[in-house]
């Protein structure tokens, strides 16, 4: 595939440092702001990428002595076979960034960070609390060279409290916040959540940085923002904590179900799409599921009407919402007997046209190919230099006057080291050579 869904393609230089990233056509909310990005894995990098998509200049601090493991492997999938510049995981959460290679254990690298901090508006990290301080690069150190710097430090459980030194990843944030306990089918164990949890934590960290910038714009003051990834997930399930205090017990796992509505579930279909939609090039799923929710008698009757389940309308077990809910286990196979002979996408269309909330349960290429996704501009093509053209999702928000632009794929490891040192910081070649000699640029 050589064209992208919306005609945009982004490519960076093939050799040496690539200089400034291609400028966006219009300034973003954070244009002109420089942020030191110490983050790694998924959560921190995604948060920092949000800031880059808003126009900030992100300088990601990396080292071959401590490679961001999303360049090498994923928690769920295991090791990635390609090289450190080819990992799809890394590309997805590091678009629009510069990469400088620095071994922070060396004195020279520390001075580079201090010089960067003097020119930066923000810094973001997701280290275990205390790691940067131990390196002499904590908030107090950066503040000493730049009192106005806004620093967001996002850790597993926060920088204070008895568990501040504990480490974690997405699945543990979900476990420690209460979300895992609430996720899963009612009669089954709680589920282990994955990468989406990291991106939620990253979104929260990015929001904290924006709040810090907003405060700085009004007061001229920098600050240290101590963000907890487990709290970030807790913040997303606020009503469950009120449930505890006001009802005196914890909430339940509901799976795809609902406390009051039925049908409210996913049902197996014959296929994702009708047979004529498939061709040899089709990349989407063959099997399909459809989600259907009825919140009222009206929606239920509309469902019966267009599903050929006309006979259920008069069935006393299903006449009212409460009865349908009580008999939902009997109802499910009856609906599935119908859906299992239908294609998911087209059936969902029919149901929606009749006013019934319904959707095919999609993933991967079926998302990219969907008409609604395409009609909003679709994906953006990026071509990381050592791999193939990739279609990536645009950011989860559209700003009419300061639109995000994906101007670059994720950087190669250390791709911008020379550029950052010589052009951003004005180091001469002798100084750069001395840093290399010291091992600071590894």
């Amino acid at each position, binding site marked *: 595939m050589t064209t992208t869904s919306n005609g945009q393609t982004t490519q960076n230089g093939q050799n040496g440092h690539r200089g400034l990233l291609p400028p966006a056509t219009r300034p973003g909310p954070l244009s002109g702001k420089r942020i030191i990005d110490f983050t790694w894995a998924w959560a921190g990098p995604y948060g920092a990428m949000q800031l880059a998509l808003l126009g900030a200049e992100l300088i990601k601090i990396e080292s071959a002595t401590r490679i961001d493991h999303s360049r090498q492997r994923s928690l769920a999938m295991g090791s990635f076979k390609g090289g450190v510049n080819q990992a799809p995981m890394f590309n997805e959460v590091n678009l629009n960034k510069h990469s400088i290679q620095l071994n922070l254990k060396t004195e020279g690298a520390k001075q580079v960070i201090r010089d960067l901090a003097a020119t930066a508006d923000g810094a973001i990290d997701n280290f275990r609390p205390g790691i940067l301080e131990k390196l002499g690069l904590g908030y107090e150190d950066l503040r000493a060279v730049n009192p106005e710097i806004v620093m967001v430090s996002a850790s597993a459980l926060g920088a204070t409290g008895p568990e501040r030194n504990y480490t974690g990843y997405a699945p543990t944030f979900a476990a420690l*916040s209460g979300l895992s306990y609430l996720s899963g089918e009612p009669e089954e164990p709680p589920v282990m959540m994955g990468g989406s949890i990291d991106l939620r934590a990253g979104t929260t960290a990015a929001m904290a940085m924006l709040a810090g910038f907003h405060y700085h714009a009004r007061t001229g003051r920098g600050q240290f923002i101590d*963000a907890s990834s487990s709290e970030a997930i807790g913040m997303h399930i606020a*009503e469950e904590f009120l449930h505890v*205090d006001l009802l005196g017990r914890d*909430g339940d796992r509901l799976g795809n179900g609902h406390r009051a509505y039925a049908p409210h579930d996913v049902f197996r279909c014959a296929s994702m799409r009708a047979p004529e939609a498939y061709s040899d090039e089709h990349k989407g799923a063959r099997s399909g599921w459809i989600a259907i929710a009825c919140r009222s008698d009206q929606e239920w009757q509309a469902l019966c009407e267009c599903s050929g389940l006309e006979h259920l309308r008069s069935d006393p077990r299903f006449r009212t919402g409460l009865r349908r809910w009580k008999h939902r286990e009997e109802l499910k196979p009856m609906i599935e007997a119908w859906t299992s002979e239908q294609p998911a996408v087209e059936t969902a269309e029919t149901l929606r046209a009749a006013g019934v909330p319904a*959707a095919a349960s999609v993933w991967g290429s079926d998302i990219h190919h969907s008409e609604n996704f395409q009609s909003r501009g679709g994906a953006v093509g990026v071509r990381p230099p050592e791999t193939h053209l990739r279609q990536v999702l645009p950011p989860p928000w559209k700003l009419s*006057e300061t639109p995000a632009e994906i101007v670059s794929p994720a950087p190669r490891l250390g791709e911008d080291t020379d550029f950052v040192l010589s052009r951003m910081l004005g180091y001469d070649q002798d100084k750069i050579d001395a840093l290399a000699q010291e091992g600071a640029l590894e």
Partner: protein
Amino acid sequence: MVELAEEIAGPFAARMLADAGAETIKIEPPRGDAARRMAPFAEPSPHRETSTSWLAYNTSKRSVVLDLESASGRRVLRELVGLADVFVTDRTPRQLAELDLSPDDLRERHPRLIIAAVTPFGLVGSAAEWPSTPLTRAHASGSAAGVRRNLGANTGAPLMAGAKVHEADGGTALALATWSALIARERFGHGQIVDVASTEAMMNMDRVDISIAHNDGGPPARPPTKGGSAFGGRLECSDGHLIAVTPQSHQWAGLITAMGDPDWAYDSNGDLIDRLELGEDAADAIEQWASAHTRDEVFRALQTNSAPAGPVLRPSEVMDSEQMQVREFFDLLEHPVAESARYPQFAARWNGARRSARTPAPMLGSSSADVTRPFLAPWNPAQARRAGVIG
């Protein structure tokens, strides 16, 4: 800030800005935000002031009831929006047009206004008016498929995550973009339209795996492992479940140390064997070890040895944890009808402190008269209430 939004996504976004100090006027229809009717309630019977979903996402706001079926009600709303810095809404393009609040028109009439919209499928696009619910949105976005896939199984029904986390994604995306628009306004002087499709917000949370599925033909074949991860997973302890994740070699070594350095983990040279080479036998041994201990014992043993882990806590256990208490993650709010309860704050401490000067969710229409008085002429609030314009 003026909010015309119901249920979770829009109110959550507005709440984050309101808790941060934005004066927020929430416009409700006479029967109230639909969240007021969402179970469960603090009391055995439904009460419009005590739904947990209502209480959780509407702190620091004032409530104004307007009958938007009436021309006068719509006029008052337009006046309020015209004076606002931010208009948060979850209404679809058609509904906004009916209120004479089309984003493009508002943009023209009020150049400094930020129109912050979170709708299921966006303000533009072929699906803008599709009927949907949280269930169908979670599935239409790929978010539910993502939960299932993370379990290590590519078959089986796609599954929503718990609580209302998918809906909350639309809220955080909107809050983030609205903060950005406020910063842009201070710098450039103009407002803008913020268009968040909540399904795209959910989709972005799984952007890494969706990309791999689309661009690389799905994840590479991997060894079957228990619990859904090549590097750990869900373990059953004597009192519940725990998640351990050890992708880095020093973390794997920490897990082995926590278990008391069993022989099977080492090769003949005394070096640790790579986890992936050990396969299911190692998984069985780890499970057996975990099952003989409590969650807390395994949690502390692993974390002491730098192995990332977390017990699967019930929400009540989260609230009781010393960590959350020391960090003051919850603040206690009194409410005139519901009892006092602990509310989670924004997930950050600012220069070492929480910012927690917030008020509980407002009673329905409690600020109707105060807020609308200047816009009711020739009526006074009592007359407007009798006429059904305000409530």
